[in-house]
C-alpha cells in the first residue's frame, strides 16, 4: 500500500469537498447566492492552501503511489484555476439569477470541472491526465448547453460534446500508442526510455496524436473550429470559464508532457509546435478582425492567445515553462475581466453582444468604458498592463532558447499589432461613436463588478510590479 500523503492533496480535497457541499447546500437553502458563497469560499480556501504549500515546497513530491506529482508547477496552476473559478463564480451570479433554473447544479459543475483541471495539472500518469480531462470536459459540455430553451446554447453544448469526444478519442489513442512503446503510462518513465524508443514511428504517431488531442482542448488552429460557436452560444460566464481555466489546464498537461517528459526528442516536435503556434496566432487574429459579435471576437482572440502560449513551448526549457505559467495566469484574469465587462454591459432586454451596440458607452458609463478599455489594452499587450509583461516574458524565453526561431517571434509581435486593431475597434465604438439608439443599461450588478474590479487590479498590479508573480512561477524542469 503506497503512502498517500493527504497533506499534499489538501487543495484537491478542498475543491472536491466544496463541490459536494455545494450540492447539499443547494438542497437545503432557498437563496442560491448561498451556494455561490460556499463555492467562492471553497475556491479561496483551495487557492490559499495551494499558496501555502507552494511557498513551503522545494522538491516535487509523489503522491498516491506515483499517480500524481505535487510540485511548484502544479500548485501554481491550482492558483490559476482558483483565481479564474472565483472570478467566474462572481460573474455568474447575475446570469444565473436571471435564468432561474438549476442554479445549485451550475456551481457544482463549475467546481467539479475545476477539480478536473487540478488533476490534469498534477497528474503524473497519462491515465490521470485523461481522467482529469474527461471530468473537466463532461462538466463543460453540460455547462455550455446549460440553457436548454436557448437554441444557441443547445448548439454550443452539442457541438462541444461531439468534437470534444472525438478529441478525447484521439488523445486516448495517442496514450495507447505511447504505452505500447514505453510499457508504462507513467509520465516520468517516458524520458529515460526516449533514447530507445525516440525514433519509433508508432511512438511518434502517439506523440502527434497527443498534440492533436491537446490542440482540440486548447483550441489550436486547425483544431479550433468549435471554439467560436461554443463561446457565442454558451452563457457568457460559461464562455469566460471555458476560455480561461480549461485552456490553462490543457496547457498544464501539454507542457508537463512535452517540455518535460518529451524534452529529449524536442527536435522531433519543436518545428511542428512552432508551425502550430504561428498558424494559431495568425488565423486567430486575422479572423477576429472581422467579427461583429464581441463573444466571437473574444473567442478568436483567445485562440490567438493560445498561439502566444505555444510560443513559450518552443523554448522547451524551465524558462519557457515559467513564462507560459505567467502568461496563462495573466491571460485568465484579463480574459475573464473582458467577459465580465460584457456581462456588466447588459441592457434591460438582453446582453450586449454586438460590438456596434457599445457605441457611446465610454462617456455614458465611464467606469464600464474604462474597464473594458483596460482589458482590451492588456489583451493587445500594451504597457503598462500585465499583458505586456506576459508577452515580453514569453518572447524573451523563446528567443533565448532558440535564436533560430526568431521568425516566430517576429510573427508574434506583428500579430500583436494586428490584434491591436480589433481590440481598439471596441474602444473606438465606446469612445468615438455616437449610439444609434438610446442606451438602456441596468445598474451594475455588484457581484460582477467586484469580479471585474478584482481583475482590473490584477492586470494593473501585475503590469507594474510583476516580480512577485514571476518568483512564484520559477520552476525546474522534471517537476
Amino acid at each position, binding site marked *: 500500500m503506497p503512502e498517500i500523503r493527504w497533506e499534499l492533496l489538501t487543495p484537491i480535497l478542498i475543491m472536491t469537498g466544496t463541490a459536494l457541499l455545494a450540492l447539499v447546500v443547494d438542497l437545503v437553502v432557498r437563496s442560491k447566492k448561498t451556494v455561490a458563497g460556499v463555492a467562492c469560499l471553497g475556491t479561496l480556501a483551495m487557492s490559499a492552501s495551494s499558496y501555502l504549500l507552494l511557498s513551503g515546497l522545494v522538491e516535487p513530491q509523489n503522491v498516491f503511489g506515483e499517480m500524481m506529482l505535487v510540485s511548484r508547477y502544479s500548485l501554481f496552476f491550482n492558483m490559476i484555476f482558483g483565481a479564474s473559478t472565483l472570478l467566474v463564480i462572481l460573474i455568474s451570479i447575475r446570469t444565473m439569477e436571471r435564468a432561474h433554473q438549476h442554479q445549485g447544479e451550475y456551481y457544482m459543475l463549475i467546481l467539479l470541472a475545476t477539480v478536473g483541471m487540478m488533476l490534469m495539472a498534477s497528474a503524473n500518469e497519462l491515465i490521470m491526465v485523461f481522467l482529469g480531462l474527461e471530468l473537466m470536459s463532461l462538466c463543460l459540455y453540460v455547462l455550455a448547453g446549460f440553457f436548454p430553451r436557448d437554441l444557441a446554447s443547445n448548439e454550443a453544448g452539442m457541438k462541444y460534446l461531439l468534437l470534444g469526444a472525438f478529441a478525447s478519442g484521439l488523445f486516448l489513442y495517442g496514450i495507447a500508442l505511447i504505452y505500447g512503446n514505453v510499457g508504462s503510462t507513467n509520465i516520468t518513465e517516458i524520458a529515460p526510455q526516449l533514447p530507445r524508443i525516440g525514433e519509433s514511428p508508432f511512438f511518434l504517431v502517439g506523440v502527434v496524436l497527443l498534440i492533436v488531442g491537446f490542440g482540440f482542448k486548447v483550441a489550436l488552429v486547425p483544431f479550433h473550429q468549435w471554439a467560436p460557436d461554443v463561446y457565442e452560444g454558451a452563457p457568457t460566464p460559461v464562455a469566460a470559464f471555458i476560455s480561461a481555466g480549461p485552456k490553462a489546464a490543457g496547457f498544464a498537461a501539454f507542457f508537463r508532457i512535452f517540455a518535460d517528459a518529451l524534452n529529449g526528442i524536442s527536435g522531433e516536435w519543436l518545428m511542428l509546435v512552432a508551425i502550430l503556434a504561428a498558424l494559431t496566432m495568425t488565423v486567430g487574429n486575422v479572423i477576429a478582425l472581422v467579427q461583429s459579435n464581441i463573444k466571437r471576437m473574444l473567442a478568436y482572440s483567445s485562440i490567438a492567445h493560445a498561439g502566444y502560449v505555444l510560443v513559450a513551448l518552443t523554448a522547451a526549457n524551465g524558462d519557457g515553462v515559467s513564462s507560459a505559467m505567467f502568461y496563462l495566469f495573466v491571460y485568465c484574469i484579463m480574459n475573464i475581466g473582458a467577459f465580465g465587462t460584457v456581462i456588466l454591459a447588459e441592457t434591460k432586454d438582453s446582453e450586449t453582444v454586438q460590438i456596434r451596440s457599445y457605441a457611446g458607452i465610454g462617456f455614458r458609463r465611464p467606469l464600464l468604458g474604462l474597464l473594458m478599455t483596460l482589458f482590451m489594452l492588456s489583451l493587445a499587450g500594451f*504597457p503598462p498592463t500585465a499583458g505586456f509583461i506576459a508577452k515580453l516574458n514569453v518572447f524573451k524565453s523563446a528567443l533565448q532558447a532558440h*535564436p533560430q526561431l526568431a521568425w516566430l517571434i517576429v510573427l508574434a*509581435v506583428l500579430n500583436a499589432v494586428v490584434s491591436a486593431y480589433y481590440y481598439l475597434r471596441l474602444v473606438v465604438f465606446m469612445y468615438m461613436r455616437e449610439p444609434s439608439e438610446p442606451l438602456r443599461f441596468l445598474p451594475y450588478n455588484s457581484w460582477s463588478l467586484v469580479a471585474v474590479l478584482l481583475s482590473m487590479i490584477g492586470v494593473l498590479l501585475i503590469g507594474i510590479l510583476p516580480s512577485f508573480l514571476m518568483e512564484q512561477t520559477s520552476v525546474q524542469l522534471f517537476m
Partner: protein
Amino acid sequence: MFLSLIVFLPLAGAAVIAIFARSHPEVAKGIALLTTLLTFAFSLFLYFGFQDTASMQFEERVPWIPSLGISYHLAIDGISLFLVLLTTFFGPICILAAWNSIQKNVPGFMIAFLFLQTGMLGVFCSLDMVLFYVFWEAMLIPMYFLIGIWGGEKRIYAAIKFVLYTMAGGALMLVAILALYVINGKITGNYTFNLLTIQQNMSQLGLSVRVEMFLFLAFFLSFAIKVPLFPFHTWLPDAHVEAPTVGSVILAGVLLKMGTYGMLRFCIPLFPTATFSAVPWISVLAIIGIIYGALVAMVQPDLKKLVAYSSVSHLGFVVLGLFALNSQGIQGGILQMVNHGLSTGALFLIVGMIYERRHTRLIADFGGLAKRMPIFATIFMIITFSSIGLPGLNGFVGEFLVLTGAFLSHKIYAVFAAIGVILAAVYMLWMFQRVVFGKLENPVNATLQDLSIREIALLVPVLLFIIFIGVYPHPFLSRMEASVEHLIQTVHQPVKIQSTVRLQEHRTNPATASLDGPSLSATIENADKLAFNE
C-alpha cells in the same frame, strides 16, 4: 528622485483630476495648468543643475524586474536635456491653447494630455530598454484618444492609422531589444536590458555584419516611422489634420522628436558599423523627404496640411544632420529638433487660433488678415520666418549647422538639402502672403477679432525662445556639446580600428586627404568608402 518627480508629476495631476474633478471642467483645467507649470518649473532645475559633461546626470536606478534584468533607470545627458525641457515647456502652452477650444469632456482631455506628457518625458529619460519601450508604447494610448475623441471628421481613421503605424515599428524594435538582450547575455553572462551596459559591451559581442544590420534596421524602422522619414510619412498628414490643435502641437512639437531621439540614442551608438554603411541610404531618404515634403506643402490648400508636410521636410533636415555623424551635424540636428518643435508648434497654434474664429483652414478663405488682426499678423510673421530659417531667428542656426555638417561629410547631400531651404521660403512665404496680405475680400473675415490676452500669453514664450536661440545659441549648444562629442567618439572608435588597414590605402588618394584637416571627417570619408567597397 528628481527625474521621477518630473516624469510622474503630470500623471499624478491626471490622477487628481480623475478622482476629484471628473465633472468639473474648470477645476480640471486649473489642475492641469498648475501641474504642467510645476513640471516646467522643476525641469528648469535640470537645466541649471546640469553640468556640461558627457556623463549621464540625475541618474536613478532601482531594480524593477530583477529576474529579467530590467531596472527602473532614468537619467539625462546633454541630448535628452533639451527634449525634456521642450516637453515640459509645451505643457502649459498646450493647456492654455486648449482652454476654450476643447468643449467636449474637458476633464478627459486633460487626463489624456497629462498622461501623454508622462509618456513622452519617460521616453526621453529612460536608459533601460524595456522601460523605454514601456513609455514608448504607453504614450500611444493617450494620443490615440486625443485624436480619436477630440479630432476632426476623419479622426477615427487617423487615430487608428497613427497607432498601427507606430505599433508596427515598435513591434520590430521589441524583437531587436530582446535579441540584443539575449546576445549580450549569452556572451557576457550578464542578462540585462541596461542600454549603457549593452552599449559598452557591443564591441565584444562580435555581431556579424548581417545581424548588426538587421538589428539596426529594426530599431531604425521604428524610429523612421515616428520621425517620419520618407516613405513612412503617410500617417503624419492624416494625424495632424484630424488632431485637435493641441494634439497637432504636441505631435509636431515633441512626439516626432522621439523618433530622431531614438536614432541618436539607439541606432547610432549601438550599431556604428551598420550606421556607417546605411548613411548613404538614410541621407538620400532624408533629402527626398526634405524636397518632397516641401513640394507637397507648396500645393496644399489646407493650412494644417501645409504645416504637416513642412514637418516632413524639416525632420528630413534633422535626420540628415544626425547622420552626418560629425559634431556640427549632430548638434545642428538636436538644435533643429528643438527649433522645429518651437516654430511648428507655434504654427499649429496659430492655425488653431484662426480655425477657432473661422472654422475653416483653407488658405483660399483668408486674405488681408493683417488689417483686421495686426498682432496676429506680426506674430505669425516672426514664426514664419523662424520656420524658413531667417538669420537672427532659431531656424537659421539649426539649419546652418545641419548643412555645415552635411557639407563636411558629403558635399552633394548639402547641395540637395539646400534646395529644401529655398523651397521652404517659397511655400511658407506664399502661404503667409495669401493669408495675411492682399485685400480683405471675404466679408466674414472683416469681423474677426485680434488675438486675446490668453492667446498672446501662450505665444510670447515661444517667440522669446525663437529669438533667443537665433541670437545667442551658445547656452544651448554648450550644454549638448560634451554629450555629442562623446557620442561621436563611441561611433568612430570601432570603425577606426576596422578601417585602419583601408585608411592606409586611401592615404594615397588625394580626394580624401584634401578634406579640411580634422581626422574625424577623414575617418568618416573612409568609413563610407569602406561601405561602398564592400
